[in-house]
C-alpha cells in the first residue's frame, strides 16, 4: 500500500505523462530529437555509398595501388608518367576549359580528370595540357573522426539546441500550458500539496524528455556503430549526459514556466547565458547547466591543431572538475531551482483572465 504522498504524486504523474508525450504543443520536440538521427542516418547512407564506390574503383585498377603510389604523383608530372605509375584510371572524364592567354586571346584547353581509389581514399588528378595540374584526395572518415564529429554534434546541436528547446517545450508547458488551457484548477481543487503537483508534473516531464532524447542518442549511436562496424565507446556516458541535461534544463524551464507568461524571452536569455558560460566569472559559471555537462563530455572536440581560438574558448573547460563533482553540482543546481519553483507554485493564483 503506497503512502498517500506517493499515491498522489503517482496520480499526477499518470495524468501528466500522457500529456507530455502526446501534447500537440510538444510535437516539435520529436522533430528536434529526430533531427540528429536523420542527420546521422543520411551521413551513414552517404558514407556507405562512397565506400562502395571506392571499393568498386579500387577493384577496377589495373594493379593494386597504395597510398605511397599516389604520394609519388605531383604537380607538373606528365600524363605518361602518371599512367605508367598508376595505370589507366578506372574513371576518366575529358573536359574543355576556356581561359585567356597572356595576349588576352581565348584558349581552349583539353583536360582530363582521372579518378583512382586505393579502397579507403579517393584521388582526383586533373591533367591539363598533358601535365598534372591538380591533385585532390578524399579519405573515408576514421573511427576517431566519427567520434569527434559525433561529440561536436552532440555538444553543439544536441545538448545546446535540441535538448534545450525540447525541454523548453515539455517543461514550460507543465504549468504554463495548463494556465493557457484554463485547466490548472483541476489540480488546485484537490487535497494535495502543491509541491506534490509539482513533483508529479516534473517527473512526468522528465520521463518524457529522457525517453525521447536518450532514445534519440541511443539510435544515433546505433546508426554510427553500423557505419563504423564497431560500437562507439562512451555510449553510456552520452546517454547519461543526455539524461542529466534533461534533469537540469527540465528544472530550469519548469521554474521559468511559473515565472514567465511568454517562453520566448526566458528561452532567449537562458540560451545567451548558457552560450556565454565560458566568459563568465568562476562563481557564475556554476549557475549554468552546460557548465556541468561540458565537464562530463567524454570526447574533446577542440583538440585539433586547426581549431579556431574562439571555438576552442567556447568549448574549453577552464575550471575542470571531476565527473562526480559535475554530477553532484548539476543535481544541486536542479534541487535549488526546484525548491524555488515549489515556493512559487505554493503562492500561484488561478487568474485565467490575465493569461
Amino acid at each position: 500500500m503506497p503512502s498517500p504522498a506517493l499515491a498522489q504524486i503517482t496520480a499526477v504523474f499518470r495524468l501528466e505523462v500522457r500529456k507530455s508525450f502526446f501534447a500537440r504543443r510538444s510535437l516539435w520536440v520529436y522533430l528536434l530529437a529526430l533531427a540528429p538521427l536523420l542527420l546521422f542516418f543520411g551521413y551513414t547512407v552517404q558514407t556507405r555509398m562512397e565506400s562502395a564506390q571506392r571499393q568498386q574503383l579500387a577493384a577496377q585498377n589495373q594493379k593494386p595501388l597504395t597510398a605511397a603510389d599516389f604520394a609519388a604523383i605531383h604537380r607538373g608530372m606528365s600524363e605518361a608518367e602518371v599512367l605508367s605509375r598508376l595505370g589507366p584510371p578506372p574513371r576518366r572524364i575529358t573536359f574543355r576549359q576556356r581561359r585567356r592567354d597572356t595576349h588576352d586571346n581565348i584558349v581552349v584547353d583539353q583536360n582530363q580528370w582521372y579518378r583512382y581509389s586505393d579502397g579507403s581514399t579517393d584521388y582526383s588528378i586533373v591533367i591539363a595540357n598533358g601535365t598534372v595540374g591538380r591533385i585532390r584526395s578524399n579519405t573515408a572518415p576514421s573511427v576517431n573522426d566519427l567520434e569527434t564529429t559525433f561529440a561536436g554534434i552532440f555538444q553543439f546541436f544536441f545538448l545546446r539546441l535540441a535538448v534545450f528547446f525540447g525541454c523548453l517545450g515539455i517543461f514550460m508547458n507543465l504549468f504554463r500550458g495548463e494556465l493557457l488551457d484554463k485547466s490548472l484548477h483541476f489540480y488546485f481543487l484537490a487535497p494535495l500539496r502543491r509541491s506534490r503537483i509539482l513533483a508529479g508534473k516534473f517527473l512526468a516531464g522528465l520521463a518524457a524528455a529522457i525517453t525521447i532524447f536518450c532514445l534519440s542518442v541511443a539510435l544515433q549511436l546505433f546508426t554510427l556503430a553500423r557505419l563504423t562496424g564497431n560500437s562507439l565507446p562512451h555510449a553510456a556516458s552520452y546517454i547519461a549526459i543526455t539524461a542529466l541535461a534533461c534533469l537540469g534544463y527540465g528544472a530550469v524551464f519548469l521554474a521559468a514556466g511559473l515565472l514567465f507568461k511568454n517562453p520566448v524571452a526566458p528561452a532567449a536569455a537562458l540560451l545567451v547565458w548558457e552560450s556565454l558560460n565560458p566568459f563568465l566569472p568562476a562563481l557564475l559559471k556554476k549557475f549554468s547547466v552546460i557548465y556541468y555537462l561540458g565537464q562530463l563530455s567524454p570526447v574533446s572536440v577542440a583538440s585539433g591543431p586547426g581549431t579556431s581560438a574562439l571555438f576552442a574558448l567556447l568549448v574549453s573547460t577552464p575550471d575542470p572538475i571531476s565527473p562526480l563533482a559535475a554530477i553532484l553540482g548539476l543535481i544541486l543546481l536542479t534541487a535549488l531551482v526546484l525548491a524555488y519553483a515549489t515556493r512559487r507554485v505554493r503562492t500561484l493564483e488561478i487568474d485565467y483572465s490575465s493569461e
Partner: protein
Amino acid sequence: MSTATAAVSPTVSASAGIVFDNVCKFYGEVLGVNRVNLTIPKGITSLVGPNGSGKTTLMNLMTGLIRPSRGRITVRGIPTDDPERLFAQVGYCTQFDSFPRGMTGREFITAYLRLFGRGADEAARLAQSAIDRVKLGEAADRRLAGYSKGMRQRIRLAQSLSHDPNVIILDEPLNGLDPLVRAESIALFQSLGAEGRHVILSSHVLHEVDAISDQVIMLSHGYVVAEGKIQEVRGEMREHPVLIRVGCNQPRRLAIEVLRQPQLLRAELIESAPGVASGLLVMTRDADAFYLDLNRIVASIPELEVTSVAPADDDAGSVYDYLVGRGQGAQS
C-alpha cells in the same frame, strides 16, 4: 444579519463556518472585493449580484485559488492556504469551462478522486455515485469534448460532490441547464443544505436563488451590501416604503378604510380582469402598523373577507435594487 458592510458578529463558531475577516482582494489596481467581514453558516447561502460584483472572487478566495491582498479566510477553521485539509472538506464547482484533454466524464471524476490518494476501485465507486447523483450516467463514458454546456455543468457538479464534502461551493451552477435539470439541481442543493452542509452558490438570477436560499449575501462592486435572510434584510430597510398585496372580496371598501392610516402612502386596486378588482396593493412606511390596522378593519367589517396578505417587494431582486440604489431590477 446586517445591511451594512461593517463587521458582522459571527453567529456561528469560527470552526463551524466560513469566516472572512476584513478581507480585501485587489487585482493590481482593480478592486475585487473590499473589507469583507462575513460568517457563513450551514445551509444554503446565495451570493447575489450582477456580473462583476465580486461573487466569483469571494468563491475563489474561500477555495484558495486566489489569495487575499489583506485579511484572513478560514473554512471550518482551516486556512485556505492548506489545500490538503481544505479540499478534504470542500468541493468547488467552478465556472471555468475547461477540462483536461481527451478525458471522458467518468475518467475526469475518477482522475480527480485519484488525486486524493484513493485506490482505483474506491475512486471508480465514488465516481459512479457522483455521476448517478447528477443523472449523467448515459453520457459518463463519452468524451468531455462532446458534452453540451449543460452536461459540462453537471459533470463539474459531480466532481465537486464526488468526495462527499461538507462545504459545497457552486459558481453559477444553474447556468446552461434546461428547466427539468434545473429543477433537479435545485432539489439536490436543497437536500445537501438539509443534510447540514454548507452550500454556497452564486447567481445573478435573483428570483432563482430567492426561493431556495436560507440566507443571501448581496454584493455590489466588490462590497457586501447586505447579508442575512431576505425578508429580514428587507425588514431593516426602514427608509424604503413596504409594498403589501392584500387579496379580498371588497377591495374598494378596504381601500377607503386603509387610506385613513397616516403611515399609508398609496393604495392601488389590483384588477384580475378589466373593471374587476380582486385585491389591493398598498405602500406603507410601517408594515407592522398596517397589519395591526388591517386586523382591526377586518374585525369591524364582517362582510369583508381577506383571502391573502403578502409582502410584494421582499424578493431578492427588489431588495438588491433598494440596496444598490438603482431604479431597475438586477438581472432577472
